[in-house]
């Protein structure tokens, strides 16, 4: 089935016109769907919802990385704290050239480097830390940011993504407190604010709001954006990058997203948190994405 083949396509990491992001995000969404279909288990909802953010973060010439020498000591770092949305990270890394996209079909299989939750032990290029226990990644990111800013004294940036349900973990607030104490202007913490978690709506399972006020009270620069608006994502990340070396405050981007974004029957439905598409659903999802792709191409022609 042609839908389920992974092309070799990779994308460059460079400054690019905003209208190029949709098709990158689209490719990432296709990869998420396809790899999860192969896996037969895993987390569709959050992975799809964060595709737009990942597209801009990795392919907009903002984050400095080099897939062919990925452990370079001057790289910027990305730490996935919400380990369960590994499919979007794997898709991104594959399309950035860290490893062959075809490996995406090994997701969650015995012997794969694409563990259900990222594992450092299997040595997949681009993976900075193991993850899967919520809340830990952001403290790891803080550790890296301290190292860069206060020990190495470099201008390396540290990006991290947490879920919004994840903010219920107290250790996350320990990390927040430390980030502002150490004036980690080089830290960019993106919250995937889809108001969904496993048991339901975040504000119903255990309300975390008001969010902006919480982060502000913990000493952050906070900005709330539409996590599907490329222009907002880009300019916010760009601002972070530009101001980072002068800034004495850590940065929090509250990205309002929809779980399952892009697939009609998944969108904004928390029941898709941890479920993969079956074959039928995968085909439907991929054809929706292809339709969208055609529209995007048309749109780009007009503009």
């Amino acid at each position, binding site marked *: 089935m042609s839908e389920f083949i992974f092309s070799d396509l990779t994308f460059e990491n460079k400054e690019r016109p905003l209208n190029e992001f949709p098709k990158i995000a689209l490719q990432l969404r296709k990869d998420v769907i396809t790899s999860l279909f192969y896996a037969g288990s895993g987390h569709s909802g959050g992975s799809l919802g964060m595709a737009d953010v990942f597209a801009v973060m990795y392919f907009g010439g903002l984050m400095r990385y080099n897939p062919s020498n990925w452990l370079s000591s001057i790289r910027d770092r990305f730490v996935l704290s919400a380990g369960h949305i590994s499919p979007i990270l794997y898709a991104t890394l594959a399309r950035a050239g860290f490893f062959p996209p075809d490996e995406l079909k090994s997701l969650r299989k015995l012997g794969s480097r694409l563990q259900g939750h990222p*594992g450092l032990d299997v040595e997949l290029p681009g993976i900075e830390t193991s993850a899967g226990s919520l809340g830990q990644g952001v403290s790891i990111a803080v550790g890296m940011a301290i190292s860069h800013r206060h020990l190495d004294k470099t201008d390396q940036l540290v990006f991290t993504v947490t879920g919004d349900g994840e903010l219920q973990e107290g250790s996350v607030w320990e990390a927040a407190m430390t980030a502002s104490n150490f004036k980690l202007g080089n830290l960019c913490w993106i919250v995937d604010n889809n108001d969904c978690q496993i048991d339901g709506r975040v504000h119903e399972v255990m309300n975390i709001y008001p969010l902006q006020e919480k982060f502000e009270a913990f000493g952050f620069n906070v900005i709330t954006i539409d996590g599907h608006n490329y222009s907002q994502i880009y300019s916010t990340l760009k601002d972070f990058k530009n101001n980072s070396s002068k800034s004495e405050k850590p940065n929090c981007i509250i990205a309002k997203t929809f779980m399952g974004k892009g697939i009609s029957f998944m969108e904004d439905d928390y029941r898709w948190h941890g479920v993969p598409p079956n074959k039928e659903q995968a085909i439907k999802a991929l054809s929706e994405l292809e339709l969208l792709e055609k529209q995007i191409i048309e749109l780009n022609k007009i503009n």
Partner: protein
Amino acid sequence: MNFEKIEKIPTRKGFGEGLVKLGEENQNVVVLGGDITGSVLTSFFKEKFPERFFSIGIAEQNATTIAAGLALSGKVPFFASYSAFSAFRNADQLRISVAYNNVNVKIGGGHSGVTVGPDGATHQSLEEISFIRTLPNMTLIVPSDYNQTKKATVAIGRMIGPSFLRFGRSAVPSFTSQETPFEIGKANILTEGNDVAIVACGTLVWESLVAAEKLKKEKGIKARVIDMHTIKPIDYNTIIDAARDCGCIVTAEEHQVHGGLGGAVAEVVVKNFPVPIEFVGIPDRFGLSGEPEELMEYFGLTSNTLINSALRAITRRDKGFDLIRHIKEINK
């Protein structure tokens, strides 16, 4: 026992149903959710008794300690999450607010072991038997199938004192019946035999039964299979009898070979009746993504490994105690 056509049911279903039963018989039973209610099936209780269900979100430390506060107010609180998080993220709280306080808190550790499958190492708790059994005042139960899990759930809900129940995600052979006895602290002897004892818990009990059957059929060896569902307090008498009667033991668990059931049995044995033991478990490494059955095979948690271990234990017993193997092998 029909080894071919055995029905498979997840142990977590027994946990969920046991909670409902407890909820019916005791108004004071309350359940705390950790954002995985549909996974560990506290959802059954939630549907039936919404007013006694409290969603705490993803905050295992807090849930555990709130449970202690509820217990100190006369309630019988259950909190369940994945065992990786309800035994470790809250370890200090378990130690102080639950075990040292010696309060009536019940913790469910679901999705334990490698049989949680493709989620991978972070979710595959393989160290909690060791930690929990070391805590004073705790009761620790690792049931082996659906029926037993249900009985164990009801039993810990009826007893007074802190308890931890470790169960799993995937469907496993349901080989005990509603009538099979279950008593906390009293191991079940499933097959009679004096040639070798297999002391197992959880998913490995079924593998032990399969191994015992093959040992009998293929080698004429009679293995005594012991379902050591209660790890703490451990059933000293049954272990000592097994050591004396069989002269060698195999332990089997879906847990690290260090510190778990094997360690508990070893402690009893050397303190009472030293005999050779072979440990079947995870060889001091973290888990991996894969399908539950693939992983059990990959890590050697199978009847075949048990058979080899039994034969090795018997050889060691018969050759006497001088069989020092090469350190490489010892360290396996």
